């Protein structure tokens, strides 16, 4: 009995944060299920999956899901390649700290402060990308601008941990730089890339703040994201739809993360075999 309790000693330390986590997020998260199956948040009549079907069927939700997915599919590889490339350049060429700081500093700039710039740079008559079909590219640009630095730091940290002797050994074997990159540097950085990937997902949802600041709650349909849908549902009191949409969203993210981890595990295994 005593031993059993001892095992849970660590829990004491987790407790303060756990209480808040439980009360603020976990319990009400499941509490929200009831709402998603109710007629409305105010009328607790059970309606089964009606709300889920309604959400899935609504063209606004479909549009939002499409835009969010499109954004992720384009932005995700783009930022990882860009930040990896920049990190590699800075690492290999020993580029000055000031240059690095320039790339990193946009992390610190609040959305509201640069919204003015983006409105003026992409939203003036004659050159109005924000209202055109290419608005998503502006959003991707903003995303890259803001978050490349974040990933850059992580990659640089990862690179500084690489064991130089492995690379040197490869050089002696006569490998050229691309080969070294392909067979040594990238595999060694896989754990770092996983972290970068997670951070990128987290940050990719924050680009909503910028869109909200620039175009308000009903932006150009090309950049209408899931968060717009959710926020608008919240403000129009339609909680039953909001919760249903939120659970669908969560499920999708869960699936993606699962896939991501699976791929990572497979890749790590492959490298291990080699």
């Amino acid at each position, binding site marked *: 009995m005593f031993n059993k309790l001892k095992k*849970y*000693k*660590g*829990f*004491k*330390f*987790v407790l*303060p*944060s*756990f209480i*808040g*986590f439980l009360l*603020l*997020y*976990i319990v*009400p998260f499941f509490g*929200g299920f009831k709402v998603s199956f109710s007629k409305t948040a105010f009328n607790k009549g059970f309606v089964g999956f009606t709300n889920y079907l309604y959400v899935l069927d609504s063209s606004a939700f479909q549009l939002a899901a499409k835009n969010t997915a499109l954004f992720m599919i384009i932005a995700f590889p783009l930022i990882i390649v860009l930040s990896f490339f920049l990190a590699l*350049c800075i690492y290999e*060429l020993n*580029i000055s700290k000031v*240059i690095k*700081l*320039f*790339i990193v500093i*946009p*992390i*610190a*700039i*609040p959305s*509201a*402060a*640069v*919204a*003015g*710039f983006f409105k*003026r*740079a992409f939203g*003036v008559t004659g050159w109005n990308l924000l209202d055109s079909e290419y608005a998503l590219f502006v959003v991707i640009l903003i995303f890259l*601008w803001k978050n*490349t630095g974040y990933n850059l*730091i992580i990659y640089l*940290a990862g690179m*500084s941990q690489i064991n130089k002797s492995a690379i040197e050994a490869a050089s002696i074997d006569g490998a050229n730089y691309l080969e070294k990159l392909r067979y040594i540097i990238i595999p060694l950085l896989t*754990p*770092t890339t*996983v972290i970068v990937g*997670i951070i990128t997902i*987290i940050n990719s*949802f924050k680009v*909503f*703040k910028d869109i*909200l*600041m620039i175009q308000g709650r009903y932006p150009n349909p090309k950049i209408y994201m899931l968060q717009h849908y*959710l*926020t608008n549902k*919240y*403000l129009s009191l339609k909680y039953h739809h*909001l919760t249903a949409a*939120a659970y669908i969203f969560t499920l999708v993210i869960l699936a993606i*993360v699962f896939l991501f981890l699976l791929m990572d595990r497979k890749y790590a295994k492959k490298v291990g075999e080699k």
Partner: protein
Amino acid sequence: MKRIVYIFVVLISLMFLFPIAFTVANSLMPYGQVISNKVNFIPNQVNLQQYYSIVINKTEYFKFFLNSVKITSLIIFGQIFLGILAAFAFAKMKFPGSDILFMGYVFLLLLPYQVVLVPNFLFFDKVETLLNIKIFDTHLALILPGMFYSFGVFILRQFIRGIPDELIEAAKIDGAGYATILIRIILPMLKPAIFTLVILTFIDNWNLIDQAVAFIETPEKMPLSVFLNDIYDGDKGVFFAGAVLYIIPAILIFTKGEKYLKEGLILGGDK
């Protein structure tokens, strides 16, 4: 080849700097030039007219500034305190189920705020009705979710994992309890991680928008970000100066602690 790459990187870095430079340049323009429909990059004449009119005519700006300071600093405080305790346990005092719990913490990070909007709402509502503490439309509605957001736990746990177990074992042999180990051994080593946490949490909450839009109703209680956006629509002439003043604390804190970011974000293999 190397030179070309070098120049290329420099060019990219200048592009990254451009939006900030533009904002600063616009903040130094005279009023008339800013509100004109033409987009200008270089001030006709450099003056501090905009800053002057914020200080003189828009004193409420500083009230909102203080709102943001209050919200952000309290959240950082909570993040550090709660984060260190939990992260230590997750990294070095494994208990049954700790890994699964930690996965839950990480998963929360992956969700956009809007998904937890309703959970937060339901909780606040319960507290209000049961305990009679006013939460809606107070800064508490912003501070509580911020404090208990699992970001701090995540960052610190990854860092603490990198600290060799031998140090702890040695201390244990000397008869130290876990609390002592945490305070005497772990805490002094955490400096880069804590700096990292402070910077990232500061940036995130200095830029707090979504929560405020949902839970704050009284205009006076809004954080600066929301207020600034109103200025752009209402009084564009002073927007850029307001923006620069808003950026300054963020840049100061960032450049002060930037050197720790690299160390703080060495997140150790996740396996």
